């Protein structure tokens, strides 16, 4: 009897460990803040959760009822539940875009949870009436996760403090190092990559990789990547709530700042746009207090209204700004524009397309110029910038035609910009190939409708892939005077390619928009 119960408990404990994977993944993605994790939990909550809980509880009750007569049912049921868990955990991990990363912290959390569960298993030998329900709860609810989190918290805090102080020490002991902070609701990662490349013309640069933009991500970058010869540290600063930027500033002490945009991102934690702006401007406050400079996107109205006073330097596409891009045009070689940096002007050419890239380049150039990269070096470096794959990526295509590959774009505003870029290819026959936008929920029809209207305004030919998905786009195009003969609806992408094969020539510009197979053109 006791053995059966112990076995049951053990199986339940193992199940709970598997349930932990998903919970830990979400906790990790919420930067280990239980409050944010609960926020996610609330959003992810569905009637299915109740059903799941009832199903577990019911099974437990059934086992308890059968226990005197057939004790073997309980471990069998537990084994069955475990199997279900394993399959589910594996499937979830495989499907996840951002998988759980097995960091030292995650391992510690696992260990703490395992310890707790082991204690519960041993507990069955003394008081199974309490231990078994607790164990059952532990894999239908995030209880063991929270217990493990609470258990490891003091240790984690000490570790974090140690790392943070170590990062501060490294930065302090690099007297020649200049720190540039970059923040913004969007555009900060793109600007960071461009700025790193421009600065590399003259300096040894280390930038925070990917989106390591939390305090601990920054600390990690400093400790692992900074070298004695590093001359500039580019630090991306992410914010999900007020105070986040200041917290990173306290670690890295930036002298220069870049604010790329203020927009309605993470409004659920900020509340208002004004609080978003205040948080981004924590960077400006810090740099200005030190006598440094803050480079701000002057095209953004919210930023422009706030960026007044000493230390603010504006960039954008408005000719009144200190640094600006003007005379922007696109060709098969990419975008070309005149870059004005204070008193100097230079004509630049880049393979990057789209207004957001022009803006990011202008901002990055303004910073690099101020830090001492001569304008001729900037001109060269800008010509060498490489686009992110499948993001407005310019390529040569069939029969010498031009391809704008925007296959990874799934954002309605980005798609409209891509169509605008296509429209700017003066003198070319412009062809759009797209299956339309998906997974936008309630906005989906409207977003596709807008895309259809925009496309009808600039394209010579439109190819819609997938008869069902094409409906809202076709509806929109039908309301315009776009010639019906130039609208092609095909079933598969291969059909679109076959048709392109027959029409593409050197005077053709093709835009692949959203969600097309990766390997169509190599």
């Amino acid at each position, binding site marked *: 009897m006791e053995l059966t119960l112990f076995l049951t408990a053990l199986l339940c404990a193992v199940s709970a460990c598997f349930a932990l994977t998903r919970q830990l993944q979400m906790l990790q993605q919420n930067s280990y803040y239980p409050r944010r994790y609960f926020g996610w939990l609330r959003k992810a909550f569905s009637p299915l959760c109740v059903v799941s809980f009832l199903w577990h509880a019911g099974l437990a009750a059934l086992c308890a009822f059968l226990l005197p007569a057939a004790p073997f049912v309980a471990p069998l049921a537990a084994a069955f539940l475990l199997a279900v868990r394993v399959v589910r955990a594996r499937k979830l991990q495989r499907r996840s875009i951002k998988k759980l990363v097995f960091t030292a912290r995650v391992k510690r959390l696992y260990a703490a949870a395992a310890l707790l569960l082991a204690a519960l298993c041993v507990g069955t030998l003394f008081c199974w009436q309490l231990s078994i329900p607790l164990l059952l709860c532990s894999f239908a609810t995030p209880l063991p996760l929270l217990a493990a989190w609470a258990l490891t918290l003091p240790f984690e805090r000490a570790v974090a403090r140690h790392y943070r102080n170590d990062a501060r020490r*490294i930065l302090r*002991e*690099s007297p020649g190092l200049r720190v540039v902070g970059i923040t913004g609701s969007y555009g900060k990662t793109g600007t960071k990559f461009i700025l790193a*490349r421009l600065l*590399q013309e003259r300096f*040894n*640069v280390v930038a925070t990789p990917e989106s390591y933009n939390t305090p601990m991500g920054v600390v990690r970058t400093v400790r692992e990547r*900074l*070298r*004695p*010869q590093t001359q500039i540290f580019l630090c991306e600063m992410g914010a999900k709530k007020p105070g986040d930027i200041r917290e990173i500033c306290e670690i890295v002490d930036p002298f220069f700042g870049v604010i790329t945009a203020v927009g309605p991102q993470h409004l659920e934690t900020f509340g208002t746009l004004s609080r978003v702006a205040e948080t981004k401007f924590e960077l400006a406050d810090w740099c200005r207090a030190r006598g440094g400079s803050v480079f701000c996107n002057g095209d953004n109205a919210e930023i422009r209204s706030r960026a007044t006073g000493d230390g603010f330097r504006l960039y954008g596409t408005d000719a009144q700004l200190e640094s600006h891009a003007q005379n922007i045009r696109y060709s098969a070689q990419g975008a070309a524009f005149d870059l004005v940096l204070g008193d100097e002007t230079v004509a630049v050419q880049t393979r990057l397309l789209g207004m957001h890239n022009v803006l990011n380049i202008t901002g990055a150039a303004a910073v690099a110029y101020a830090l001492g990269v001569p304008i001729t070096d900037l001109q060269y470096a800008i010509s*060498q910038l*490489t686009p992110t794959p499948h993001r407005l990526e*310019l*390529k*040569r*295509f069939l029969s010498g035609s031009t*391809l704008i590959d925007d296959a990874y774009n799934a954002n309605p505003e980005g798609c409209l910009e891509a169509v605008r870029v296509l429209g700017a290819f003066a003198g070319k026959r412009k062809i759009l190939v797209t299956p339309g936008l998906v997974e936008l929920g309630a906005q989906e029809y409207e977003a596709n409708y807008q895309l259809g209207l925009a496309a009808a305004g600039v394209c010579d030919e439109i190819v819609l892939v997938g008869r069902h998905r094409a409906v809202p786009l076709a509806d929109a195009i039908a309301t315009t005077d776009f010639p019906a003969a130039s609208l092609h609806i095909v079933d598969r992408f291969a059909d679109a390619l076959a048709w392109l094969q027959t029409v593409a020539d050197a005077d053709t510009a093709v835009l692949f928009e959203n969600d097309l197979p*990766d*390997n169509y*053109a*190599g």
Partner: protein
Amino acid sequence: MQTNLAVFFGGRSVEHEVSVISAVQAMGQINRDAYRVLPIYIKKSGELVTGDVLFDIENYRDLPALLRQTRPASLVRRGDRTFLRVASRGRFSKDEETPIDLAFPIVHGTNCEDGTLQGYLEFLGLPYIGCDVAASAVGMDKAVFKAVMQQAGLPVLPCVTLRARAYFADREAAQKRLADEVGFPMVVKPVNLGSSVGITKVSDPQALDDAASLAFSFSDRILAEPAVSALREINCAVLGDADGCEASVCEEPLNADEILSYENKYLGGGKSGKAGQGSKGMASLDRKIPADLPKQTSEEIRALACAVFRAIGASGVARIDFLLDTRENRVYVNEINTIPGSLAFYLWEASGLSYPALIDRLADLAFRRQRVRETTLFAIETNLLSNASGFGAKGAKGSKRA
């Protein structure tokens, strides 16, 4: 934070000792606040050793005693860094590993200065001071160097090269060819050695065989070029890289037509026991700095020096040696030393750049080249083999690349 600077010296080369002197001297001049120097001595056997004992030139007098105080070293790549791994002393202690930020080859001659060490550092992904593999190789091979100079339209003396097997198969024919095509007096030298080793000036046919045999004892290819009779030797150093370089003042080594032994050429200096001051190295040679030249000639030579430097794609500091025919008033490019003895610091000091500042400039240039490599040489991050559909009907060549 200090930059961990690994200084490589010694080497399987006839110029082993010269390299030791140049390196010990340089290590004594490096700013220790900014750099932590890791001395890596390449023994004549090719093994690497390290230890603090390597900093003092006096210790090299008794080499076996010195080597007993060093420990075997090796270089290992881990992640994106390269480490100096020092073998542990005890059976139970672990090998020590120190990350290297920058490598500084101060080696002369074959098996090191000629691109071999540079290739090894390149392979390890370590940024290093000085010429890259190609420039080092071109600089070392006098025949190839001449060809590159001719291609670039820079003035060099014509030459004839001979292979050992061809020469010894029919000496008379080979000698006749040299006499006819080069004429006397001529200079015979191995193609790939520096520091005047194996070089003979030949005035009459009887001496040719001895000169050729001597040169062939150092290399299986030799080169003969006409000797300039009214000769002045002028040297000029260049600092920078192909995108921008500057020339130092010119020097004129005195008694240039004599062939000096190492003792004369490199050990002539003092005997102070302090690291880095033990020997003056090349600086102790009799020389005139700046060379006594008309302004126009010295400017011509300095401009030529930069042109030579760019033509082979050199980087860091190099010394270019010129032959000045005073009768014809013509300048010929003689050779380039991609790692000059004493790093030609005495020419830079005379040009207003201190030795520690010279090393800082060299480090900057090395990091700059590394940056250029990093920004241009992007390894393809995704595993192309993971995309199985790429092997379909299109095949490996079928996919189009824009």
